[in-house]
């Protein structure tokens, strides 16, 4: 046990990393791809069942592709839609890893966005380099604090986070309504609840407006890339990430290892809330320029699907967010070109989740895509 050199052959052999097994590959790559294919096929059946004729179905899927990746504008829309989904999805994934089922991204987006707007239209005269980071930071902090309420309730009283975060979502809508009517927030000359506009110095700048002012993609995408890297680092390279994952996988073993459960719960909720708050800030500072009732648009709920589809892995969440962003952008095109209701996209998104959650079903549909499993062997 004492200092031997680590060079003996057995030790070296133990250090070798086995190539990712076929099963892992199937699980991470093939199942999601087939899930998307099956979901699109079932989506076509749904259209058939609602008396859409075959040419229109074909047309709508062509439109789906065109609207998501078919042009520069389509790509811009896909990225714009994906950015908040990935940010909030990362937060949820982090919570899932720590064993917390946080349904509260929606409320954290609302609070984060609201605070970011207020900071964004205040402080006239600040230089861009200070004002924008300040607004983003304020949004993230507000989201973190808001989420910590649920974390604290769980740690101190045992109140389950699913319940408390759902309630906090509802509370956040009322807070938004209330604050938007306050004189220092409400836009001058308006009777409806709508905030002042974010100052130019706090806006996430458009990236492609020099080509066409209508291209909406903005600097938030850099924020997304940064967030993916930071969350990956946090989860897999740091002590706190180790504690998160240990608590999530086996709370008893985590306690035995001396990890403080209550600290982990509050910290994980705060991190998740910070990322959701950032998603809200990203929306108001990059796309909307202001806050109004319902500005969160259900992103916090879609982000749950994104986190699940991405298997709670930062890179997976990135791809899942891009897919959902593409479906959203393409869905709008589908409605325009083929007259198919945009609700179909919701159905397809839901089907993807169903098939991801039931890999056995996917395996049964595509038996040739998978190596025959040696199920049930345990010795």
């Amino acid at each position, binding site marked *: *046990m004492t200092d031997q050199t680590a060079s003996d052959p057995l030790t070296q052999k*133990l*250090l070798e990393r*086995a190539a990712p097994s076929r099963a892992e590959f199937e699980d991470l790559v093939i199942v999601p791809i087939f899930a998307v294919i099956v979901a699109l096929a079932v989506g076509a059946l749904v259209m058939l069942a609602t008396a859409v004729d075959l040419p229109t179905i074909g047309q709508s899927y062509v439109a789906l592709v065109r609207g998501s990746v078919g042009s520069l504008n389509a790509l811009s829309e896909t990225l714009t839609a994906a950015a908040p989904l990935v940010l909030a999805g990362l937060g949820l994934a982090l919570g899932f890893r720590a064993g917390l089922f946080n349904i509260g991204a929606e409320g954290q987006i609302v609070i984060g966005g609201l605070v970011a707007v207020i900071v964004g239209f205040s402080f006239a005269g600040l230089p861009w380099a200070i004002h924008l980071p300040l607004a983003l930071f304020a949004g993230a902090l507000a989201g973190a604090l808001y989420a910590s309420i649920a974390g604290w309730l769980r740690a101190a009283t045992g109140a389950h986070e699913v319940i408390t975060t759902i309630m906090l979502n509802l509370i956040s809508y009322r807070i938004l309504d209330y604050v938007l009517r306050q004189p220092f927030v409400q836009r001058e000359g308006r009777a409806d609840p709508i905030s002042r506009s974010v100052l130019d110095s706090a806006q996430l700048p458009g990236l492609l407006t020099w080509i066409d002012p209508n291209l909406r993609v903005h600097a938030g995408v850099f924020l997304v890339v940064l967030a993916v890297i930071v969350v990956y680092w946090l989860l897999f390279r740091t*002590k706190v990430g180790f504690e998160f994952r240990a608590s999530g996988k*086996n709370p008893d073993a*985590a306690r035995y*290892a001396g990890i403080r459960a209550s600290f982990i719960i509050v910290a994980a909720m705060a991190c998740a809330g910070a990322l959701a708050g950032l998603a809200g800030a990203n929306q108001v500072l990059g796309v909307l320029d202001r806050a109004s009732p319902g500005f969160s648009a259900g992103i916090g709920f879609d982000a749950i699907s994104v986190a699940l589809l991405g298997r709670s892995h930062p890179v997976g969440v990135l791809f899942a967010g891009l897919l959902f962003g593409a479906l959203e952008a393409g869905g709008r095109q589908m409605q325009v070109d083929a007259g198919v209701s945009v609700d179909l996209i919701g159905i397809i998104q839901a089907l993807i989740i169903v098939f991801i959650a039931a890999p056995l079903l996917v395996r049964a549909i595509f038996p040739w895509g998978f190596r025959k499993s040696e199920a049930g062997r345990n*010795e």
Partner: protein
Amino acid sequence: MDIELRGITKRFGPVVANAGVDLHVRAGEVLGLLGENGAGKSTLMNVLCGLYAPDEGEIVIDGRPVTFDGPSDAIAAGIGMVHQHFMLVPVFTVAENVILGIEPTGQLDFLDRAAARRQVREIGDQYGLRVDPDALIEELPVGVQQRVEIIKVLFRSADVLILDEPTAVLTPQEVEEFFGIVRALRDAGKAIIFITHKLDEILEISDRITVLRGGRVAGQGDPETLTTRQLAEMMVGRPVSFDVEKAAYAPGDVLLEVRELTVLRNNDEIAVDDVSLAVRSGEIVGIAGVQGNGQTALIEAITGLRHPAGGSIIYDGRDITHSSVRARHAMGIAHIPEDRQRTGIIGDFTIAENMVLNSYYDDRYASGPSIRWPEVMQHAARYAADFDVRTPSVHAKAFQLSGGNQQKLVVARELTRDTKLLIAAQPTRGLDVGSVEYIHKRIVEARDEGDGVLIMSSELDEIVALSDRIVVMFKGRIVAEFDAFRGPVDRNAVGLAMAGSVSEAAA
């Protein structure tokens, strides 16, 4: 009914789990099937149950070859398996569990509960399996739940019963009762395959013994003439030492002192009642006792997982009664937890991650907020090699290891830290002979190097083999103490004390 497996070979990819195994069971006899974890016992039985189709070989029932396309074929042929982990619905009654899947129905397909209860009672009377058909499973002790599993199999008219590690979950008294049931079944003409890795039991209950090693039949024999030593050698493939070699008893200062400790269970019952106990460095103190007499709570209190209701714990001159788990780790207390699956390892984590489960924050492995994974990997690989954790790589997930290797992983993690006191709860439960021997050797080494060791085990053999001093816990109190370093202890006296008969237990 006679059943014969001829030349059964079963491969999983490159792994050969069974290689040309022959097995023969006759009606009215108990065949003991012995083998280490991973020897191929479970695979063989799963072939017999129709869960796996063999790659080669055949199953012959009463002289006729049969093929099973699934478990239902095997059940129809009269083969029933009682699994190690029970498959019962906790919120159902005994009768409901027994009939589940083949419910007797009356008119209009209504469930005939009365018939179910009657049949359960009849089977119980016939074989001495006394169970109240209306009791809820979740309210029954484990030993009774096992009877329900057997009734389930009998209810499906099984003539061949496969009992997979049936005694692993039972207390010594329950084991005796259980053997009575097995004999009754045998005398009623059932063929029984009794799977275990406990040598004493197999000698006691079997009429014939077959030993598997590495997927092959390593030996067969008659329990009348075989000794445990011979059996162990067949099972492991080399001579096994049951005697633990220890250096002379030379205890140092008192390292751990528990003073008048009282600990409550979650339901506020008293688990540990005014217990005082001391462990010196360089000695092994064994806590004997039937499970559920407060040992678990005592260990939890000493390791910081449960707050004591009264009393104090002094370690190395400091009062640690209210110290955190982590502080105790840092002071050099190592803890091999009672339930390795639940608390000792994280199955989804890699071996390397599990190896640093309670030391990842240490300066060796961490710098600032981040963990230095290359360092972790180097150490984990070295420890795994040193402690004979058999795995292809430290990147493998812990759940892929066998129970024995999981436990060696835990032992490696705890003993490679800079420790002064080792607390080991059930350190070898459910392990095969080879692993037990190895872990015992390591624990004794820690003691010989001057560590204090506190062992808790429900296996008296283990306590007697390892301990310098033995204390017996009964109903939350220490009822007897024995000095084992003076010479062999009177096992009978320890056993009596474990059963609560205090008066004559003294040393």
